[in-house]
Every structure is written in C-alpha cells, then in structure tokens.
C-alpha cells in the first residue's frame, strides 16, 4: 500500500496528465470537446502556477533556514552577510503584503503587491541594478573565455578562430574600414553555416525531449522522485 501511494500514484498522475494534454492537443473530436479541452488546459496551467507559488514560498523558508543555519555554524564571519539576506527577504515580503492589503482595503489607490512604493524602491534601486550587473559581468567573462577558447590547438580550433575573427570584424565599424567585405561575409556565416549548424542540434534536442517524455510516460525515469523505492 505504502509503495502504491508513494511511487505509483505520482507516476500515474504524470502519465495521465501527459497523455491527456498531448492527445487532446492533436485530436479534434468536436467543437465542444475542443472547447472543453482549452478550458481544462487553461485551468491546468493555473494549477501549475498555484503549485509553483507554494513551492516558491517553501523555497523562501528554505533560504531563511539555510542562512540561520549558516549563522549558527560559521558564526561572526558569516553572520553580517546572512543577516542582510534574511532582513531584506523579510522586508520585501512585508512590503509586498502591505501592498496586497491595500489592494483590497483601498482599491482606488492602485497599489498592488508589486507596485507598493517601498517595494518598488527596493526593486528599482537594489534588485534591478544587481540583476543587470550580474548579466553584464558576462562581458568580462566572454573576453577571458575567448582568450582561452580561441587558442589554435588543432585544425578545428583554427576554423573556429577564423570564423570568430570574421564575425568580430563584421560586427564593428573598424572591420568595415579594413575591408568592406567583412560585413557581407559575416552575414553569410550567420545565415548559412550558422543556421545549418544549429539545425541538427535543434532536431536532436526535440528528439531527446520526446524520448524523455516517453520514459516519464512509461515510468522509467524516476530521478525526479528522488529516492528510489
């Protein structure tokens, strides 16, 4: 019994949902069925949203727990940093909840969870710049990565380097000064070999996805459950 509820029921849920969502997507039985399906489909994606939201809340608790534990274990060296994280997490949630409260208490004010003024301030002045900074730190990384990646170790690496140099000249105005042909050569590489190169990868990724779907359907893929029972 216990194995049934622990292992089989979740897998039955998976198979049933995959079969239903995929089969009714392709099949057309009648207008009513199609209508019912799209309603059910919409509801199911809402289900997923609700479940994800709960998962995010559980995740938030996990983050808090993780940092409390770190303070306990690593003491003063870590405490200031973890305290900052915990404090900001709670602050953001509190401001959000205040906005939530006002969205019901005073709907005319137009304040919602994400538009609460202090919440917005933290978002625009702390979250957004940090987010953008981490994204753009990639400019450093791509520079040091190309330093290593384009070392000519073998003929294949030479081909890589030649392609990269053409693209880099083609992308910049200085390349056009050196030889105007770089731009059209760059365009050709991007439209012909580049497109062709990613096509088999796209097809393969699709095939892999389908086969993994099959493994989930037939209960062969169990890693998502964690423990093997």
């Amino acid at each position, binding site marked *: 019994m216990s194995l049934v509820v622990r292992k089989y029921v979740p897998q039955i849920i998976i198979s049933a949902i995959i079969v239903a969502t*995929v089969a009714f*997507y*392709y*099949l*057309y*039985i009648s207008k009513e069925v*199609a209508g019912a399906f799209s309603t059910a489909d919409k509801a199911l*994606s809402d289900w997923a*949203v609700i*479940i*994800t939201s709960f*998962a*995010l809340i*559980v*995740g938030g608790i*996990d*983050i808090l*727990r*993780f940092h409390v534990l*770190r303070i306990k*274990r690593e003491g003063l060296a870590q405490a200031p940093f973890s305290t900052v994280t915990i404090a900001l997490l709670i602050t953001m949630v509190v401001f959000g909840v205040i906005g939530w409260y006002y969205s019901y208490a005073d709907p005319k004010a137009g304040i919602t969870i994400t538009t609460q003024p202090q919440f917005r301030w933290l978002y625009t002045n702390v979250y957004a710049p*940090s*987010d953008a900074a*981490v*994204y753009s*730190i*990639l400019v*450093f*990384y*791509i520079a*040091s*990565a190309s330093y290593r*990646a384009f070392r000519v170790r073998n003929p294949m690496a030479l081909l*890589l380097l030649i392609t990269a140099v053409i693209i880099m000249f083609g992308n910049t105005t200085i390349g056009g000064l050196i030889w105007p042909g770089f731009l059209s050569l760059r365009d050709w590489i991007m439209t012909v070999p580049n497109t062709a190169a*990613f096509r088999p*990868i*796209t*097809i*393969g*990724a*699709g*095939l*892999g*996805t*389908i*086969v*993994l*779907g*099959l*493994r*989930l359907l*037939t209960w*062969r*893929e*169990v*890693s*998502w*459950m*964690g*423990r093997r029972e």
Partner: protein
Amino acid sequence: MKAPKGVVIAIALLVVILVISVVTWSLRVQLYSTRAPFSAFLILLILLVAGYVFMEQARLGRSFPVRKIPAFDAIEEAIARSVEMGRPVHTTFGFGSISSSMAPQYVAGLGVLAHVARLCGKYGAKLIATLGVPEVIATTEEIVREGYYSAGRPELFDPAYNVRYLTDQQFAYASAVQATIVRENVGANIVVGPFYAESLIFMEAGNMVGAFQIAGTARETQIPFFVLVADYSFIGEEIFAAGALASGDKETLASIRAQDIGKFISIILIVLGVIMLLGGFKLVDSLNWVWKFG
C-alpha cells in the same frame, strides 16, 4: 522469435491509429486539430512507439551498444580527481519553474545529479548541489541522500551543506552559484540542465579556481559556451542520453535508440524532399499539411 505482448500491443495501436487516420481522411472527417501539421503528430507517435518497442526488447535481453559519450565517462574522473585534491564537487541544473517546456531538460539534469551523487558516495566526495528550481528542492535532497546512503556513507550527508536552494531569479541564482564555486574552491564543476545567459558565468567561475568542468545543455544558444570553455561537454540531445546512461538501467538506455530512429526519419525526409524537388514535387507542403477540410 516470439514478439512480446507489449510490442504487439504498441505496434497494433500504431497500425490502428494509422488505419483510422486513413479512413477518416478518405471520408473527409475532421479527426485532428488544426493546431499542428499532421506530420508532427505522426512523427511523435512513431517515436513513442519505437522507443517503447526498444525498451521492451531490452527487457527481454537484447542489448544495444551505445557509442561512447566522453563527457559522461569524464564525470567519474572529475569526481575522483577532486577527492584526491580534497576539494568538493559542485553541480547545478538551472533555475525556473519545472512546469515550463524546459521540464525534460531539468529531468535530464536530475538524472545526471543522481549519477554524480552516487559517485560522490562511492568516492566519499563532498557534494554541493545548488539549484534554482523551487519544486524539486526536496527531490534534490532525496537524490543526494540516496547517493550517500546507498554507498554506505550516511555520515557525509548534511542537507544544509549539500543542497542549496538559492532563488529562482536568474541572476541572483547565478551570482550565488559563482560565489559558491569560488568560495568553496570546488574541484569539479558539473552543470547539466537548461541554461540561459548564466552558462558562461558558471564556466568562468569554475575556471577561476581551476575546476574540472563538465557541462551540457540542449538550449542551442548556450551550447557554444559550454563546448568552447568546458573540459567536456554534452551537446544538445546528449544530455538526455546522459540521463539515460546515468540510470544504469539497460531498458531505459534502450529508449535512446528511438532518438536515432528520429534522426534517420529526418535525414530520409530531407534527402527525399530534395530529390522530389527535382521532379517538381514539394514534400514541404505535405509535411506542413494540416488536417483541415473545407
């Protein structure tokens, strides 16, 4: 050779669907939706049946030798090396919600994680699994636990150290992962899953501490960064094959033969289409044909 029952049923199902399709087609009945071309449905169906047939055959003892995937074999080496150096192993498989169409890639990442966890148990390596997928925190904990317990090293399992859910926000996750890689001075950095712009962040952070790096994703735009920067990489569909290899189960592994069937179907359709163009027949139109009458 007597065909097993499952195979017969699967093939019979395929035949029945095909017959019904032909009949309804000749009767001009709207059986399939107009959302997708009929060829897509057919290819999906054939692949599912083919994969199932291969798995059944494997269950009856037929074996399908698989070519070497160097990146997969390198995982063990990477872990053994970091144990020698006394450094932990880091692995991560992405951020976001599992209810998106990236779900299969997360599952492939979890499969590799399970393999890594078992090897870490075997060699006694300290594993740090970071993640940004809120739904599978518990799963990840279970996988790591299983890895250590099955190898008889329960003392190494410490969920607060081994499993670190960071956040599901892309770059916050990325910033914490790069910091983890550098601060914990990891010896091996294994990243398999659906990655976006953060892929290169992980690779460069690993490079800062000189970690042995194995990376893979099926997201086309990020593959170059993994291939050119990591020591070993899984390209595209290889991550799904890695997931199957990691299970260590012959039947599961047999399913990847269906991917080959799919590739052959693609090659044949392309070649056929090109040849047919000579005769002025457009295969593209048939492939794009949507089940629609009137």
